[in-house]
């Protein structure tokens, strides 16, 4: 019989002492020729910022490959609920059963009040391959737009409400 998983519990309000040092929000140096800055806010059901959230990303490299030693980052949030990363735009990653996905980041958000993290994806604005992406295509148009960053790569995540960011399970 398969072993039963250990349940999730919230990160609580004090995770910064264990998880935010050293800083892991720069996947490449800011002066890297291909460096891009991604930022955004975490917002609750009232549209208020969530200052005690933590965001993690997992992404392929610029060639669309998941490689050892690159691709993971972690950022805390400031008083305005703002996180940020410096990274490179990932390449296209194969989809199940053929074809390629549009460039995207896997995103997890942890916070006090979240008994388990929320999982979403961030896609890039003005990328022609977005039209071919199976996950984006599966969403109604308004929800699809909530997975695509703004032109300046701002990507806000709304935890709750009519404008809620689409969240995924696995």
């Amino acid at each position, binding site marked *: 019989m*398969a*072993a*039963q*998983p*250990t*349940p*999730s*519990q*919230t*990160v*609580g*309000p*004090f*995770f*910064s*002492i*264990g*998880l935010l*040092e050293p800083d892991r929000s720069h996947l490449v140096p800011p002066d890297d020729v291909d460096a891009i800055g991604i930022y955004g806010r975490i917002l*609750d*059901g009232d549209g*208020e910022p969530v200052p*005690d959230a933590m965001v993690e990303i*997992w992404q*392929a490299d610029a060639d669309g490959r*998941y490689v*050892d*030693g690159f*691709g*993971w980052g972690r950022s805390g949030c400031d008083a305005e609920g703002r996180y940020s990363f410096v990274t490179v735009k990932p390449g296209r*990653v*194969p*989809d*199940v059963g053929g074809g390629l*996905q549009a460039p*995207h980041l*896997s995103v*997890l958000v942890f*916070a*006090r*009040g*979240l*008994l*388990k*993290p*929320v*999982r979403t994806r961030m896609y890039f604005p003005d990328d022609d391959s977005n039209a071919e992406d199976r*996950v984006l295509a*599966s*969403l*109604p148009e308004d*929800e699809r737009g909530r997975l695509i960053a703004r032109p300046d790569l701002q990507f806000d995540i709304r*935890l*709750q409400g009519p404008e*809620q960011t*689409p*969240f*995924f*399970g*696995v």
Partner: protein
Amino acid sequence: MSTLAVVQESGVDPPYLYPDYRSTSLRAPSKPLLLLPHTLSELTGPVFGEDYVDELDHDLTRGHAGEPLGERIIVTGRVTDRDGRPVRSTLIEIWQANAAGRYVHEVDRHPAPLDPNFSGAGRCLTDDDGRYRFVTVKPGAYPWKNHPNAWRPAHIHLSLFGRAFTNRLVTQMYFPGDPLFAYDPIFQSVRDSRARERLVCAFDLETTVPEWALAYRFDVVLGGPSETPMET
């Protein structure tokens, strides 16, 4: 409506919305989760090398001028997947209150003493058999403002990665027989009693070091998809 399937609650993890834990009310997603296809993005995850961990990072009682106050304990365990296979070289990060129930954090206003010899954070990598070992002090219970006379049972926070980003787990380890279990909405948010028991470590006489420290055992089973990623 999305054309992706809706994810059913597992019965293992807590729900997002658990009104007894008040902070969930404005942070819990209100729409059902959509099932992601299991692409390489879901079946891969970060690999952490030795450079992420210093030799003494697993020992929270070291690295200061003196030893912390409190009951010194050893916490060991094994990290496996759902098939019982060891999860090797995976990063475990922990953080906790000191023996008096106080965190080294500006938000913590509990009027209990800080300990200059205790920071409360550690990390290590699992070995080839998925085993890990920390040395620390037993954390104290502490009050919080969720409801009148609210106290968190003593616990250690753990963060684990596993082989894939979909194995990612943050949880809390509790100590056996804590009288606060019945009153703690975070512990009780895990609705299945057998699943709740998996959050409680076991006293471990065999690992206990005579004349030095009691030991507790906390095994972790990581969920999520268990497929081996396809080659690229």
